[in-house]
């Protein structure tokens, strides 16, 4: 799953740089994007979770060193918490002791993952005025997907069988929390940029549920969702920043199409992911599918708001939006090549 996500992230970076708005700092974006990609490549090839945690620490320090509205220590808090939790979780899993220790280890890994990505209840502090590269957005939308895939896949070899259920249940629980909070937050919060951040969270909720289901359908759903974050939501957010500053909501058809992409409507990538998620949940425990199906409806109001906040893309940006839409349609209608590539 990691190589595919690395590929997706690379493509997202290319899109972001090539079709960036005129006043966007392209060089900065490219430099830090490439650095992030290097870190992600290292994560993808890292053989153990220990190394992944160390790479995560490096990336966190490097990002925290960027000029930002928030101070260095504040920006490092959540990633360091993630590193510590992951490390403690790993240590507990590796010790011989009662089962509850294994479960606590699972808690550490899951909480560490949430903290690394910036999901509830370990959300990173968010400043809407902050530059993109220095903000928590790269964690939740660029590095996070691959990191999560790597952590979950490596953790399966570390987490004891007795704690496997707790591991999955926690992922699903945090997934539901993020889905609900993110969907409601992206709808109700006052600030449009914060709404975008919450919308990432809600998508992550689906991905966590997918990982938590621990069956092929769940993993496939998570992969598609993560791809849609990297190749859909992230570029769209990037291109919406200018309009967010200008605070001019628009109601053109393109805004509705973007809203449809963000809401996971058919035929965009979110839809098959939801179908797979429902299938996985049905196999595991059907009431979960009911809860998921109900929660999936919460995406719409927030997505409509975000779609309207995007303004009317023009010039290169419009081309970029068209490419993102096309990719999402392709992924939504025919995800099989991606899943085959990922061995799912």
């Amino acid at each position, binding site marked *: 799953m990691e190589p595919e996500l690395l590929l997706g992230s690379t493509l997202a970076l290319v899109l972001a740089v090539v079709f960036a708005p005129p006043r966007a700092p392209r060089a900065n974006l490219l430099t830090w994007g490439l650095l992030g990609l290097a870190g992600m490549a290292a994560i993808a090839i890292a053989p153990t979770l220990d190394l992944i945690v160390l790479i995560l620490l490096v990336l966190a320090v490097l990002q925290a060193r960027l000029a930002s509205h928030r101070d260095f220590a504040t920006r490092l808090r959540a990633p360091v918490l993630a590193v510590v939790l992951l490390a403690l979780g790993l240590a507990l899993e590796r010790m011989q002791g009662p089962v509850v220790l294994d479960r606590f280890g699972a808690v550490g890994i899951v*909480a560490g993952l949430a903290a690394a990505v910036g999901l509830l209840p370990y959300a990173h502090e968010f400043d809407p005025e902050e530059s993109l590269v220095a903000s928590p957005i790269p964690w939740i939308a660029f590095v996070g997907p691959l990191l999560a895939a790597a952590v979950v896949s490596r953790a399966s070899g570390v987490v004891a069988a007795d704690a496997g259920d707790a591991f999955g249940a926690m992922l699903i629980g945090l997934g539901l929390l993020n889905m609900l909070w993110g969907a409601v937050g992206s709808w109700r919060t006052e600030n449009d940029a914060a709404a975008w951040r919450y919308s990432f969270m809600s998508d992550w909720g689906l991905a966590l549920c997918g990982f938590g289901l621990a069956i092929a359908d769940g993993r496939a759903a998570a992969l598609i969702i993560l791809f849609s974050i990297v190749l859909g939501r992230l570029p769209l957010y990037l291109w919406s920043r200018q309009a967010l500053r200008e605070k001019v909501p628009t109601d053109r058809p393109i805004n509705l199409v973007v809203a449809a992409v963000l809401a996971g409507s*058919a035929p965009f990538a979110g839809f098959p992911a939801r*179908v797979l998620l429902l299938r996985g949940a049905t196999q595991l425990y059907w009431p979960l599918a009911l809860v998921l199906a109900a929660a999936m409806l919460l995406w719409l109001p927030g997505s409509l708001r975000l779609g309207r906040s995007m303004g009317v893309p023009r010039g290169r940006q419009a081309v970029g939006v068209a490419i993102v839409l096309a990719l999402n349609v392709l992924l939504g209608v025919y995800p099989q090549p991606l899943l085959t590539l990922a061995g799912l």
Partner: protein
Amino acid sequence: MPSIALLAPVLLPLLAAGVITAFGLGGFNLGRIAAGAGAWAALLALLVVWLPLRSTQELDLGQLGFGSPFQLRIDAVAFAFGLMVLVPAALVLTLQRRSWQAAALGALGVAAAVGAVEASSVVLTALAGGTAATLAVIQLDGEDIRAPRPKWGMLLAAWLALSWAGVILQVRGGTAAYAAVPVSALTPPVFALIAFAGLLASGLVPWRSWPAQVWSRPSLRAAGLVVATLYPLGFYLLVRSYEMGDGRYPHIAFQAVLATWGVVVALGAAARAQSAATRRGFLGEVIPGIGGFALMTVALGTPLGLVAGLITLAFAAAMTGCLALLPDRGGPASLVAIAAAVGLPPALGFGARILGIESTFEAGDFFGFIGVGASIVWVVWMVAGARATGLPAGRGRPAPETSPRVAMAVAVVTLVAGPALAVIQSAYANPAQADVMPFPAGAVSGGLTSMVTVSTVLPVVALFVPLLIIAVLAFGAARSSLIRTQPRPPLFTFPWTGAIDRLRREVASASLPEQYRSLLDLRALESAAAGGRPLVWLASLAALAFAVTR
């Protein structure tokens, strides 16, 4: 015919959308020509694929990636519903002027709807139907964002529910393909999901739902197309359910409840129609009303009921095309359209409803009472139709989007199509019914001149042809100038409609009492949860640790 030809009815509108977009970006609006051509070509392709063989054809293009193969199938049901979608869509796309963006979206919507009908499995139908719904919302909002449109959430809920039903079938039965689902997999809960999806997708509710609301938009370009493409899809699911259930729903209670619900839907539409302030208001209720009758008969679970339902749906499709092109002014076009809508004998609507009511009696048990109810609802429709002939026209649509002659022609065709009821039944409805109900007990027969049911024979040609001639002579001799246009009071209002509106307003305006607001201060909650506070993190960790020890 190579099986790849099955793609043509979907691909041709898609191709048209591509061409329109390419030219549109170049500054040329090919909208009407290309979109119309795409839709007509798709219709032609459907006819060419189906008519020579008149047997099921399939095309398998491998797995799509969500447990569902990309398998298309054209059988009699797909053919029937394909026609229901394509004929009115082609009419409105050809005759209404629209921007290239709207035309491209319209063509895409047509392709998606046809895709939903051609899909061989529940999940694929959900994907295509969901796409059609998304495009419908975009079309409507793109045309006029302030005008009424279907609630996106409702449509999404419908197609998500269907997706869920599909994946349950995949998990429990190993497949969600209509033709291969084991009968035991279509359990009551799964069917309940499908029925819920069907009702929501077509807005089949007794209160004023989107199929009625969209007709009150200032412009009816997008509305007509959306009703043409989306409205039949909910019924399609209910018809296909017979195929999955081997000719019946999992429990007879579903038939009774859905058939009753259909009558209630038709009654709701009739009640609103008889109290409409304008003719446009009345016409807006026509499609939901016909839909209610169609639901009643489709849900009965008998061959006659299904045949009647399919004919009623074909009638609804024709009326959709007619109403989308009808101008907001008096004159013969409006009169003929109203006469056709209420089912004046010997119109197609008359024959279809007569068959539908007969089917309830022949269904046995208590279904006959549903037929009595349907007759009563029809009477309300008669009142509404008679009243509507003299109502003020309404809002006044832009002239370029109307085509009074074609609208009148379509209405006249439905009026004079009563004698062709048996032909429609034999060529159109019977094969579809036979596809989904393999056991022919109670099937409709009678050839091309009569409709023979268990208890009666309806000699449509022998009876309706002379009646039609008499009607033409009688109405031809009559003076229509006597009809006085005037505001007309409603005959009745349901006592509880006001209460429902009041309740809705109260719920919408409900707010938390002042003294409790601090408990649910969203901003404070937001800053606590997403503010990056270590104490919150620690507490969360403790909560997780506590949870895993349970």
